């Protein structure tokens, strides 16, 4: 596939690798929105270039380091990457899980991240389990002026809510979508009362139906080892991947008639409506067959 012409997708900041990986002198040859790119560090300065078909280095685009990742764009962003003040708080550990390749639309991946109803079936025994399957009512809203989708007052009973959790607990959640490809959740911290742990995904859409998912956690957990934390998150994501690579059609349908929704899908419906209003087409299912993801 060649670079998309979808301006909405092009004009976003996208995470395309971890600082740690690239700072060690490794260039990352990857792809963004159908465009082959090279990501590298010039001393402290992250840089991104188009990688031409003939192997030559092409146009340079803006790049910046943020939240342990290199962010870049092929367009002209109207909005900065999301603000997460928690990164400046003391006592938090940033866990960067590395990229996981998923053959699915970025939008399906984000939608799955917002979904609680699948916990008992996809993350059985960890994030949920029959017979406690009901999704309690929660609130959804578009926040202005940030232009973000939020779902708040979410809760779900979980047999093993986090790497550090021994017992089941009712976890409280808040979900936040700051760009079509970036989402973060805030979840009851099992260690410090009243505090939130952050888990987020920066989805790098390589093509309409293939992504690298960059996952991070920002937690107040001093006991679990780094590899415990990474393993926990990786196990969860591999379970999600087995779903994401098996949805038909691969592109996210934005037409409300294409798939059936219930009240528990409120965040998914608001996300879809928000995407529709933006006029995003990349990674969506288009009934006319023009979607690569069909």
């Amino acid at each position, binding site marked *: 596939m060649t670079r998309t012409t979808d301006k909405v997708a092009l004009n976003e900041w996208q995470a395309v690798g971890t600082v740690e990986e690239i700072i060690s002198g490794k260039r990352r040859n990857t792809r963004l929105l159908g465009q082959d790119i090279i990501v590298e560090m010039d001393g402290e300065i992250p840089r991104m270039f188009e990688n031409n078909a003939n192997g030559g280095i092409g146009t340079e685009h803006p790049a910046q380091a943020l939240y342990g990742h290199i962010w870049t764009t092929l367009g002209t962003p109207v909005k900065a990457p999301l603000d997460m003040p928690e990164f400046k708080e003391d006592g938090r550990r940033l866990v960067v899980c590395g990229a996981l390749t998923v053959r699915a639309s970025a939008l399906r991946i984000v*939608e799955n991240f917002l*979904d*609680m*109803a*699948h916990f*008992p*079936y*996809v993350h059985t025994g960890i994030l949920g389990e*029959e017979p406690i*399957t*009901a*999704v309690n009512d929660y609130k959804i809203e578009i926040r202005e002026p940030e232009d973000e989708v939020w779902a708040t007052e979410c809760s779900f009973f979980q047999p093993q809510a986090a790497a550090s959790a021994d017992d089941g607990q009712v976890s409280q959640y808040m979900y936040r979508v700051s760009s079509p490809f970036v989402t973060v959740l805030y979840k009851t911290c099992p260690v410090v009362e009243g505090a939130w742990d952050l888990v987020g995904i920066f989805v790098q859409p390589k093509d309409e139906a293939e992504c690298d998912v960059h996952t991070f956690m920002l937690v107040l957990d001093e006991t679990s080892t780094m590899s415990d934390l990474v393993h926990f998150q990786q196990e969860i994501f591999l379970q999600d991947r*087995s*779903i994401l690579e*098996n*949805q*038909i*059609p691969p592109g996210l*349908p934005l037409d409300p008639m294409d*798939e*059936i*929704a*219930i*009240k*528990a899908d409120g965040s998914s419906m608001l996300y879809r409506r928000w995407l529709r209003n933006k006029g995003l087409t990349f990674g969506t299912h288009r009934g006319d067959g023009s979607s690569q993801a069909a």
Partner: protein
Amino acid sequence: MAEHFPRDAWYAVGGAAMLAEGEIMPVKLFGKERVAWRGDDGESHVWHNRCIHRGMRLQFGFVDGDRLACRYHGWRFGGDAQCKKIPAQPTLAPPDDFRIPVFQSAEKNGLVWTTAGTPGANVTGLPDSENFVFCRSLAVHAPPDAVVEHFGNMDASITTPGILSAILNIEGADVPVAVAIQPVSADKSQIHVTAGQAGAENAIQPLRLRVSAWARRLRDTIENQTEKEDSE
């Protein structure tokens, strides 16, 4: 493909015994994905392989009694394809239009049959003259028409779309075979091979083995032939 494989015909898609109670099997017909499953009540079904909720392939679900459950959010669908239960909202009685599109299906001659259209109500099955037993199913990497053509060269007859009958000579004895061709896609087929059951019950297993061996050779020949034509 239309001439030999009309949409409205019945096509075998697998051995009925391969689809035990509680099992789910992905099926492809004319390039379209289906799912076949059998509930604890013994009934088999052929549906769209796509959940109406978030599009999950139903082949990865699980059978819960006489219902099929989707792997993604556990929605339960009854044998009538109607959604009976939505775990995320247990108090909701799923509306009538929460249902999976289905295809007509039936079992006959030890095979599961389905269609891409609206055939007559009764499954045609294999020719009535013999008491056919299922031997095995084999994937053939060749267009369905190529499979038909190959049989044409060996004096087989087609009485019903997709079904070829021939007499094999196995170790001096004439064995009637019937092969049901499943048009998987433009370039893939599946053959379901059955043989006329001659003689005692204990003769079935050796017969199966011989006919299966014949079918494997047949598959290899057809695939080689197709490859050769492709490279020419």
